[in-house]
């Protein structure tokens, strides 16, 4: 059998077994949505990391380095800073607050934090989540089709069907626990791949001097982190735009829920250490893989720059190991899609059904409703992926910026500033998501800087200004 296929099938077997073994642990909605807040530091840290990075990290970032050389490092720096900020500023306080307030989801948190009996914050945040995440999951299914197509020559439709069916299966079976355990496997696989592959490739290409001389012969600018740019394009386009991606982390519901699921808040400090070690290995590894590809194939040497990681793996690693490394890209996609599917599900089962329709529903019924919701959203996302084709892929950019700007400033301020009011948070959510979408659609603005930067900044201003203009809230205990 093809070793790559064997590696992939072995990997799929593991996630299916996790689905079966975690099934019986889901007795309450808190079990299904947060694994009963019983997870340890390792599993939470690797789950947050594996869910946070989709196939973009292993496919897109090496592709960027292949096309632009060392200037791709800015994306790694921006993401690393954003992830560290999220673990240091948000994780602990969110974990403590959500338990104190009895919140299972972000809309639960915002409603309880501000005692919002009108359900305004719940409805707005839930709508933002359902809207962006259905497209987000759909884009991941499309990516599954693309990766399985290029790796095994499967028709894209079949690849999408296989990817979607497996993700939906183990999410229904095991809920958050299955998702977190598969994330652990996927996170380790992604990090392992990004240690092994750049090492093997760089040694084979003659080490640092060998890679530098090969790239220098193509274009000296590719060796510079400025990419040879100066002035405004350098500062706004490259540095601010790339660093700006990192702003999104503090507002992504599928990552913030990871912090809520840890057993003890004190374990989050160990989690920070694990997560950041992963970041340094995986992000820098991904850039170095793309650089190795650039040294070997040259500019324009590959028809599709996003094929660089699988190509470098096939060239510089033994076939069996290359199979496992390429499976890591599929793992990256699946670990993101399952977490997003679960967050969208929680919006249906907890935020709509439990809180607004049937407050007295039994736990058994709520878990059943969640499983039905998972299938429903999975199927809608799949149909969208079928119909929208490539266009959905672009929606990932909106979704990252839209969610990051809608929830990021509202989240950070609600955790750290007692003066934040319900109307401030409402304004932040509306301004953040609206500016992100509008900015993205106006060519002049979009070319100037990535939409998340202005959307985040304006949302932050909106939270602060509107909070100050509205009546001060009652004193709250924000200690974490």
């Amino acid at each position, binding site marked *: 059998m093809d070793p790559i296929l064997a590696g992939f099938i072995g990997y799929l077997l593991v996630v299916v077994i996790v689905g079966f073994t975690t099934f019986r642990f889901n007795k309450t909605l808190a079990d299904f949505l947060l694994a009963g807040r019983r997870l340890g530091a390792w599993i939470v840290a690797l789950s947050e990391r594996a869910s946070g990075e989709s196939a973009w990290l292993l496919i897109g970032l090496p592709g960027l380095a292949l096309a632009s050389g060392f200037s791709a*490092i800015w994306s790694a*720096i921006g993401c*690393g800073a954003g992830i560290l900020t999220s673990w240091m500023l948000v994780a*602990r306080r969110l974990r403590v607050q959500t338990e104190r307030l009895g919140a299972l989801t972000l809309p639960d948190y915002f409603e309880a934090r501000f005692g919002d009996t009108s359900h305004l914050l719940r409805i707005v945040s839930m709508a933002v989540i359902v809207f962006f995440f259905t497209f987000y999951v759909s884009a991941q299914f499309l990516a599954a089709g693309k990766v399985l197509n290029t790796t095994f020559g499967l028709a894209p439709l079949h690849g999408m069907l296989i990817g979607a069916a497996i993700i939906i299966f183990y999410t229904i079976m095991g809920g958050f626990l299955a998702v977190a355990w598969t994330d652990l496997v996927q996170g380790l696989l992604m990090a392992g791949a990004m240690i092994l592959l750049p090492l093997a490739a760089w040694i084979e290409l003659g080490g640092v001097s060998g890679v530098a001389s090969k790239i220098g012969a193509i274009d000296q600018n590719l060796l*510079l982190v400025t990419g040879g740019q100066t002035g405004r394009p350098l500062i706004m386009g490259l540095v601010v735009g790339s660093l700006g991606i990192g702003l999104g982390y503090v507002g992504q519901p599928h990552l913030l829920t990871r912090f809520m699921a840890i057993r003890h808040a004190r374990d989050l*400090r160990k989690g920070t250490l694990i997560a*950041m*070690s992963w970041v340094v290995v995986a992000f820098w590894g991904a850039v170095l893989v793309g650089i190795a590809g650039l040294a070997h194939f040259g500019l324009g040497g590959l028809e599709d720059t996003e094929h660089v990681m699988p190509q470098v793996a096939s060239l510089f690693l033994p076939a069996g190991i290359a199979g496992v490394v390429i499976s890591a890209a599929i793992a990256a996609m699946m670990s993101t899609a399952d977490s997003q599917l679960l967050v969208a599900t929680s919006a249906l089962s907890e935020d709509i059904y439990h809180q607004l329709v049937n407050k007295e529903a039994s736990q058994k019924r709520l878990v059943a409703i969640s499983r039905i919701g998972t299938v429903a959203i999975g199927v809608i996302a799949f149909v969208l992926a079928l119909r929208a084709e490539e266009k959905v892929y672009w929606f990932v950019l909106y979704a990252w910026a839209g969610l990051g700007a809608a929830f990021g400033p509202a989240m950070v301020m609600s955790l750290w500033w007692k003066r934040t009011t319900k109307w401030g948070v409402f304004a932040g959510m509306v301004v953040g998501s609206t500016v992100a979408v509008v900015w993205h659609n106006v060519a002049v603005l979009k070319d100037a800087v990535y939409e998340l930067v202005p959307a985040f900044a304006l949302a932050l201003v909106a939270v602060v200004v509107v909070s100050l203009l509205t009546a001060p809230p009652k004193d709250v205990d924000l200690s974490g």
Partner: protein
Amino acid sequence: MPPSTVFWVVVPPAVLMAITIIYFVLSRERR
């Protein structure tokens, strides 16, 4: 390899890890 490239590839991850370790040590709960 230009020195500025070596700097930007090596120093930022070292700074991120340094902040992480300082945070890890300082956030220890005092009993």
